[in-house]
């Protein structure tokens, strides 16, 4: 394996590791569910895609002919990342609307003080019941 191939593979590996680390730091550090969804679905996908391309270059240089099988993994990750982000944000939005999750920017959960489960739903039910009792 020539020196330039080794430099290219090393560079791709370092870029991949960096972006995967950035995505996971974003997952751990960002404040609420929707911003947390933003970091891993983009940065981590790019990082692992870069590692996959590094393996492709390495395998092609070792075998002496182009081997494009690894592109399947990279392509699969790139196609499925938006689908995962969309379905997960739909689930998070539904949990937010039904009151079983913390609102964006709500830091009450960060220090372990959880609101009672279904507090918003309970309040809505109580309001409905109060309105119904005034009816003859």
């Amino acid at each position, binding site marked *: 394996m020539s020196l330039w191939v*080794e430099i290219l593979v090393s560079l791709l590996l370092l870029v991949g590791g960096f972006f*995967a680390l950035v*995505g996971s730091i974003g997952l751990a550090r960002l404040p609420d569910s929707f911003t947390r969804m933003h970091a*891993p679905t983009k940065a981590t996908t790019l990082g692992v895609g870069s*590692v996959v391309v590094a393996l492709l270059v390495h395998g092609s240089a070792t075998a002496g002919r182009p081997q494009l099988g690894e592109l399947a993994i990279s392509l699969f990750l790139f196609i499925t990342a938006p689908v995962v982000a969309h379905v997960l944000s739909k689930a998070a939005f539904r*949990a937010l609307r039904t009151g079983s*999750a*913390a609102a964006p920017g709500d830091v009450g959960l960060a220090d372990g003080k959880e609101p009672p489960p279904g507090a918003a739903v309970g309040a809505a039910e109580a309001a409905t019941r109060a309105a119904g009792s005034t009816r003859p």
Partner: protein
Amino acid sequence: MLTVAVVLTYAALGTAIALNIWRLVRGPDATDRILALDTLTINVIGVVMLLGIAVGTKVYFEAALILAMMGFVGTVALSKYLLGGDIIE
């Protein structure tokens, strides 16, 4: 040089996996935990590919492909369960 790069990438991916597990244990909502599991799967794919480079075989390619597919299907199934209680409508 390639050895140094492989070791550094192992360290970065290992730190990323540790952060994902931290979010998986800590994460306040179910969606955060599902997202942490999905990111964990993607990072593990990276580690498996890196193992393929370090050892110099093509055996790990199929394992990475299967991990990618199972991770995607699992994430979508868990999210659909959260959405309506039904996985297949």
